[in-house]
């Protein structure tokens, strides 16, 4: 059998095996969110589906090149004591078909993955950010300072939501759109314009992050889709993702995604506590 045929068969076999393994990985969490170890928001789902699609595309490419390296080491390897000395008998410096297919295929693959999942996914993300697609959104003002997350709920007159231990905490009702209004400044030292730095607002389980930039107000709409909490899944936490000074590792806050009834009860408690 010629080398091309052997290589082709091996490529297909290993690619199929690889794709089966990839499928097991993708399906290891609901809605194909295996690579993200589960996703609990609508926009996070867009990201993980893009990730999944790229796994399908990248795997045969990986197998092709990696197999070519191993195949050459096994098939074209000449031992030191081999009688085959001197230059290789097959000498070719070009192969128009191979080069042509390579160039066309690499352009097509790159354009394809730019269109989908990138551009198509972005359209979904952009649409999810439109106010008219988020009726009755819960507004949460998020203030990042060195080094604390402060959450306010203006619709419910909660200035700074705290748990029983006095720590900042984020409560969200499930399946209701949330509008995060993100700002970076220090409300306790508002006179000092130099201490505001860039932070990153990230809840790993929600599958999305956005930087919080001093002097700018940014908005992020998303809808939590699962009942969860930091205690149940440590990926459900607010974590600063952009380095912001010595306190950066500790700049996190607990998150609770609860039912509408539980949320209403929590709001009452916060109001009663005068937060």
């Amino acid at each position, binding site marked *: 059998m010629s080398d091309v045929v052997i290589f082709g068969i091996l490529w297909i076999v290993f690619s199929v095996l690889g794709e089966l393994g990839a499928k097991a990985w993708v399906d290891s969490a609901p809605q194909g969110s295996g690579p993200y170890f589960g996703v609990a928001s609508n926009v996070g789902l867009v990201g993980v589906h893009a990730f999944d699609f790229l796994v399908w595309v990248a795997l045969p490419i990986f197998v092709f090149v990696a197999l*070519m390296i191993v195949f050459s080491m096994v098939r074209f390897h000449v031992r030191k004591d081999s009688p085959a000395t001197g*230059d290789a008998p097959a000498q070719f410096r070009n192969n128009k078909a191979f080069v042509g297919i390579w160039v066309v295929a690499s352009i097509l693959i790159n354009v394809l993955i730019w269109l989908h999942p990138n551009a198509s*996914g972005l359209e979904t*993300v952009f649409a999810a950010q439109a106010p008219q697609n988020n009726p009755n959104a819960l507004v949460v003002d998020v203030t990042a300072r060195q080094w604390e997350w402060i959450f306010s709920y203006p619709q419910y007159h909660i200035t700074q939501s705290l748990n029983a231990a006095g720590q900042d905490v984020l409560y969200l009702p499930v399946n209701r759109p949330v509008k995060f209004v993100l700002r970076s400044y220090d409300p306790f030292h508002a006179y000092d314009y130099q201490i505001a730095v860039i932070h990153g607002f990230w809840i790993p389980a929600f599958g999305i992050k956005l930087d919080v930039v001093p*002097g700018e107000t940014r908005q992020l709409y998303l809808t939590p889709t699962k009942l969860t909490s930091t205690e149940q899944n440590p990926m459900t936490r607010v974590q600063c993702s952009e380095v912001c*000074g010595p306190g950066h590792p500790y700049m996190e806050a607990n998150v609770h995604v609860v039912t509408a009834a539980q949320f209403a009860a929590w709001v009452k408690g916060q109001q009663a506590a005068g937060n």
Partner: protein
Amino acid sequence: MAQRQAQVPSPPELRAKARRPMVPVFRAVLWATIGFVVINAMAAWLDPSPNSPYLPAVGAVAGWFGGLIGWLLGIGGYEHVIRPMFGHPAPVSHSTGWRQYFDFSTNHKVIGTQYLIFSTATFFWAGLIAMAMRFQLMSWRPTIFQYPQNYLNAVGIHGTLMMFTVATVAMIGGLGNYMVPLMIGARETVFPKASGLSIWLVPIGVMTVTMSPLLGNWTTGWRGYEPLAASDGNGMLFYYLGVFALTTSSLIVSLNLTTTIIFKRTKGMTWNRLPIFVWGILTVSLLNIIWLPEIQAAFIISLLDKLIPFNFFNALGQPLGYAELFWLFGHPEVYIVVVPALAMWNELLPVFTRKSLFARPMAVLGLVFVMMLSGMVWAHHMFTNMRFSEMLPFSFFTEMISIPTGFAYLAAIGTLWKSRLRLTTPALLVLMSMFNFLIGGLTGLFLADVPANLQLHDTFFVVGHFHYTIIGGMVFSWMAAMYYWLPKFTGRTYSEFWGKLGAIWVFITFNLTFSNFFILGLRGMNRWVSSYPHYLMSENFWTSIYAFLLGAGFLLNLVHILWAWNAGPKVKENPWEAKTLEWHTSSPPPAKNFDVLPEVVGSFYVYGDQVPEPVAAASQIGGRAPSV
């Protein structure tokens, strides 16, 4: 130069006494100290403040420049640059043997070796810092770094040194300086004095960055993000100054090598015959010449912003302005790292496969197109803070740059096919580099995809990705080049057994270490943290164990190469039967490289039993006299 010295004869013993007052490095340290103390004192006198410490911010910056000038004059700039300007003859360097590597030199091979020495030493120094970081990350709570700012300092020093002293220097300042003149058939470079001084900017830069915490902790990591940098400790100042010294060194290397490649090619060395590695050095040199002044300007603005302050980059100014300026340089930077590595693959593969380089024009065009596209992708480091309208064009160009990068694979794969592959240590390391960089490149697809990037950005997934490209791509190729050219450097060779063992060891431990980074990132491990949630501890613990084994593997390769350099078995000239010009002179090469300048008559990359030699025999060119 040699002719002018011949006109001023003097007894050797007198000359030695008059011109060698002190070992150059010691004199340079002394003069640098004097320069620093004097200028710092002047700054303190001109700008007094009853509450200022002995070393105020302005004094540290001004004193640093005094120290820099003292250092460069002391190392040899005084005799070799300043005095000749006033008509004095340039002195001959007296140092021989190992001493010449601690002296000013105009010999490109000595300079190249000096760059390799400093890059290697810094690689292990910054690697040791990485080991300390990995030790800290074995536990979810502070152990050896009691305060996060100490850990973040370590992160910044590790990244800065690895980037500006190793990744962008070892293959350009080191191998480029040593090999490019040999490979194009030149006896010297165009700017030997500038080149001789440029290497001595490296130890200054390394020392400055290393000692920066003495001025105050800085926590930004190697990117120096504003506005955090402006409110961080004064160590930030030494970050800017250290990087300024290191980038100036690289800039001089690039100016020198570009000019040398344009003007010093031997007869018959047309652009179409230029070796692939030289093409790689030429393209990265152009990248350096375009982008290093840009980042230096950005750093000068940031330095002044910190000293004065101007409020350029805080809430009153434009906080993202610095990030734009940084990545405008920062993304071409990664191609400065990897283009010499891609070129190295296709330089070595024809030699070890005994087969003509496949699709050579594509391999060269790939390097050139990577260079041209690299300035159009920077904002993909900023998907989490850019406008929606910018996301589509930047993700587009980012995806597109994988096409010319792929041409390096196209040429390599075509060359491997139906070849006679001799699996020596350098060949093995090239194949490993191709495998590692493949993973680095394919994980780049995920990061270039904006919806996925919004989750992966600023996590260990990114850290894994760029270590796969830099260590996996560049460091493995660098090691391949060191084993390949060892017989050229020394006339000695290495042990195949220890070479292969070292290669396999670092390959396995590297992949164990950094594949875990991808999973850690996906599980929610963010960057720049010395403490993290407890659920990530077990995986971090094992990643650290693999990282320690990786460090030991690099040490094994270092010991082996040093042993081979000094005591390895003698080897015949051109043991690989390579065709390029550096193998057409003795090993190690004589001071002026070639007794008779070779003439190129064919391609270096065409193999086959009937193919004539690409270099005309010395008898055929009738002994052209050395034109110094």
